[in-house]
């Protein structure tokens, strides 16, 4: 039981980092990306490759994963500068679909559908950190760091500028904000953090393949952010706990026949998403309109 809870907690922490980084885009910068799993994947692949080819050091891997994801996030920044709203959603969708094909085709980097197997155990500055409880602690530390960075930045002028752009791009520009640069910074920062989450994921799973970086994953993370509450620090975490623990919790229900377990779980899961959006449209941790 402890091992199971540790496992869930570690996954929840990794997804917490992922959701928090997407919240930077969706919640603060108003960039509605449904391609976040792409950058999660880029980080995971980069981290795994580094660990397999050079050294399984988590710090270096995080650096590499963050760099690769951050650099390639310019593919997302480009449409983000040109279009907004539904158009951007569609652009990120296109990017996501293309990336999945590239991930499955670029065998040298990703191992194709077979994925990368045998990712070595993680170490940090020479210490073995692969034991599940230790790794959980490391993940929690990374999550804490990410949250601190987001909080500090979002409380500062950068955060205010992003939110100003989100609420009215033209007005922000009229007050001297370099919208292109700020948006690009936000995208790079958010995607680099997603890359770091990907590195942790790769080390934790010891195996990665394209099935973890699909559109479904992107939508799951997006749902976590929206259901939890955008532009709040704890909202994405609340969303992660709910959406990760809901299926896990449902699997404990004794009365579902084993042959129908998947469908019934999905049914409840989908219904929960719809109902939450009807009754808590600003998310569980968000404040609704009219509330002062």
């Amino acid at each position, binding site marked *: 039981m402890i091992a199971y809870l540790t496992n869930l907690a570690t996954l929840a922490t990794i997804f917490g980092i992922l959701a928090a980084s997407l919240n930077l885009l969706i919640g603060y910068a108003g960039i509605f990306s449904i391609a976040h799993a792409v950058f999660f994947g880029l980080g995971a692949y980069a981290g795994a490759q580094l660990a397999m080819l050079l050294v399984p050091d988590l710090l270096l891997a995080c650096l590499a994963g963050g760099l690769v994801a951050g650099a390639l996030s310019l593919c997302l920044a480009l449409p983000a500068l040109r279009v907004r709203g539904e158009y951007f959603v569609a652009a990120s969708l296109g990017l996501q679909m293309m990336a999945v094909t590239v991930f499955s085709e670029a065998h040298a980097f990703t191992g194709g559908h077979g994925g990368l197997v045998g990712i070595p155990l993680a170490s940090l500055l020479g210490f073995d950190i692969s034991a599940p409880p230790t790794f959980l602690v490391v993940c929690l530390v990374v999550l804490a760091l990410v949250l601190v960075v987001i909080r500090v930045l979002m409380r500062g002028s950068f955060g205010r500028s992003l939110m100003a752009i989100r*609420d009215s791009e033209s007005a*922000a*520009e*009229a*007050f*001297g904000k370099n919208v292109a640069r700020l948006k690009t*910074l936000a995208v790079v*920062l958010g995607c680099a953090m997603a890359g770091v989450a990907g590195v942790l994921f790769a080390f934790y799973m010891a195996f990665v393949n394209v099935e973890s970086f699909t559109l479904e994953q992107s939508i799951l993370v997006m749902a976590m952010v929206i259901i939890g509450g955008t532009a709040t620090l704890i909202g994405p975490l609340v969303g992660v706990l709910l959406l990760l623990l809901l299926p896990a919790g449902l699997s404990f229900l004794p009365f579902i026949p084993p042959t129908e377990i998947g469908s019934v779980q999905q049914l409840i899961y989908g219904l929960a998403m719809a109902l939450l959006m009807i009754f808590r449209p600003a998310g569980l941790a968000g404040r609704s309109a009219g509330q002062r």
Partner: protein
Amino acid sequence: MADIPLSVRGLDKHFGGLAAVQNVDLDLRPGVTTALVGPNGAGKTTVFNLITGNIPADAGDVLLDGASVRGLQPYQIARRGVARSFQDLRLFGRMSVRDNVLAALEPAPWLWQPGGGGARRARAKAVETALERTGLTAQADARAMDLAYAERKFLSLARILATGARIWLLDEPASGLDPNSRARFVALVRQAVSEGVTICLIEHNLDIVTELADRIAFLDRGAKLAEGEPQEILGDPQLISIYFGEPR
């Protein structure tokens, strides 16, 4: 020429076949409030958008202190001391009133605002002053979208006030205000003018125009038909009949 903070020379803009602005000249001088007046669709807001670089001009030029701003991005023009308001306000709706004003005076070139603690305190002070002058201190922590209509209009003014910009372009700043708020608004603008701010405003309410404007530029179908003292323009029956929309 150099003592004119902002001058517009032969500005032209076409949207498809429609001439939105045709050969408009305009000089804005410090301490002088100029009103752009004209019927709906005369191209007044387009003139603003051309000045701030939001849309590129087909021909003509905008000079800030005698230097052309051609090719500059809107944010670069803004940083040269041009602040504007919008007809539809464009507040930062989900941010607090205080953050709305604060965001307006931080260009935030990178991840942080340079200048350190001293500059930060100075900015905080500027924000408080702007909020005080616009009477929004009590609402400082409310979200902009939750404000009443008049409060929102004052917030859009507070954003401009706090920046310390020397040129203000105000797009229908007083429309829809009750008489009491209107009086406060007029007082605010007058104080700014007395402090040397150059103001250009678009306004439909002719009472406000007569109260505030030192000069009036009359636009119709993108062209400047006349410019002069308020009584001179408002006394011209032909212009007035265009303004009040005789069948055209």
